[in-house]
């Protein structure tokens, strides 16, 4: 029964939220709170932080990585159901999935050759 399989997930989420909530509440009773500007400054070697932290230009590899992830992760999605029914669909299933993986490899090889995977320290 699907409901009985996924109901615990809800319970667990509720449990975690409850526990964290209680902990935070207890903590808030116990902990001191005396902020002052210097303390509230972001950690930046004691200098005043200049501008929005996220406003800086991030290196493109981060974006490329995100894009690669989106593509690869989603393609992996096709592999799971295939792996489950592997024996039932027989040879044709093998061939088709190998073609799929091959295409994936082509894309991967391209990304590699193109230097998308090079990461300068």
């Amino acid at each position: 029964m699907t409901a009985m399989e996924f109901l615990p997930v809800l319970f667990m989420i509720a449990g975690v939220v409850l526990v964290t909530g209680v902990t935070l509440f207890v903590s808030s009773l116990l902990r001191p709170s005396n902020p002052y500007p210097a303390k509230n400054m972001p950690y930046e070697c004691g200098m005043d932080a200049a501008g929005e932290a996220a406003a800086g230009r991030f290196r493109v590899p981060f974006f490329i990585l995100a894009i690669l992830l989106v593509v690869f992760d989603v393609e992996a999605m096709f592999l799971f159901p295939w792996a489950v029914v592997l024996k039932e669909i027989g040879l044709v299933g093998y061939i088709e999935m190998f073609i799929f993986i091959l295409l994936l490899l082509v894309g991967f090889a391209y990304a590699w050759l193109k230097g998308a995977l090079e990461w300068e320290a």
Partner: protein
Amino acid sequence: MTATTLFQSALASLPEIVVITGACILLILGQFVRKGQEHFLVWASVAIVLIAALATLMLASEVRPAYAGMFIADRFAVFFKFVFYLATLLTFLLSRKYADIEGIGSSEYYVLLLFALSGMMIMASATDLLSIYVGLELMVICTYVLTGFLRRERRSNEAALKYVILGAVSTGIFLYGVSLVYGLTGTTQLDGMAAAVTGDPLDPGLLLAVVFIVAGLVFKVGAVPFHMWLPDVYEGAPTTITAFMSTGPKAAGFAVILRVFLNPLVAASNVWIIVAVIAVVTMALGSFVALVQDNFKRLLAYSSIAHAGFAIFGVAAGGADGVASVMLYLLIYAFMNLGIFGAVIMMRNGDFSGEVIEDYAGFAKSHPGLALLMLLYLFSLAGIPPTAGFFAKFYVLVALVEHGFVMLAVIAVLLSAVAAYFYIRIVMVIYMREPKRAFAPALTPLVRAALAVTAAGTIGIGLFPSWFLKLAQDSVFGG
């Protein structure tokens, strides 16, 4: 599915396999191509397309259903595939020099075009909404990237972004329609859908679903009310890609529309009224807005909207002749539009963009031959005999009148008279102005070849349309 049927299916889809395999190989090999050897890429791409064309031709003799009803290799598909081959090949020929000038002549450019070609081919052959969707996306995703290929050009970025977002929305609309059809009929196969709805064709839910699907597809061909992306994208994209998009993917969109419209489900749902309205509005908008354009590419974008509208008239006409007329229209449009784009592409040289109509002032004086070619394409686009453009329009009108849509035909011709104005305005600039500059068109042998092919097609089909007409008619009945 057994191995035998898989083999049969693979055979039926051999052209697609050839193109995709070739594109993959080229993708990898392209990384090893050194600077100054880019011509290898062109020739390799051309070879791939030619092999695929050969395969298509060899398999054209019979109808081959494949992949459990998702795919079919019939004459309808063959016809469209040849339109795609034509558009792609000519784009390759036109691209070489232009890509060098713009600095986009990397292997990805050609590979993406090949992948887009394969997507279009899948669209032409698809008989299941799923395969239609996959082909469609394969095609548009490639064109998204190609649109933004001028990475340092803001217009190009902008065009690509608009294209992606609006394209994704239209895909979403299309998919929503598909999901409704699936929910109502329990199948996504075109044949299965038809069989499932024989009982009550006017189910409002189905009508809604069909409207959604039509809306999604209409976007791809750039018809009103989903045309807003088109001018910006056409203007921003590299000109070669604009040329390609206005012919290949547009034809592919029509292939799917026709395939869906050949389906009794759509035929039963009286959706042709919507289609007729779309056709009228599309053509009107394309024609009238084009009147005030100064940018050549933008003008051609609106002209392309207008032409899409005219082709949709053929869809609205329906019937074998209606379908054949759309097919012929697209074939001819591929010739003449690639021709005129070829001329625009050729103008891009040095710091001269050739994108503004006024730039062409007095072109006839220094380059009478090229000006004559442009004249030919422009009059063909305007639909003046004896060019092919006339016959294309004529046949659509015949189909319209045959099915009793005389009023639509009248509207169509009146609007095409409006459209004629902006074409002859360009002719006017080319022929009747004094030149302001020295022209140095980038006229490489490849561009020459492309122009020769398009010119031969434009005038040849105009004078001897019989064979092509027969081809289109036969392709309909085969499908």
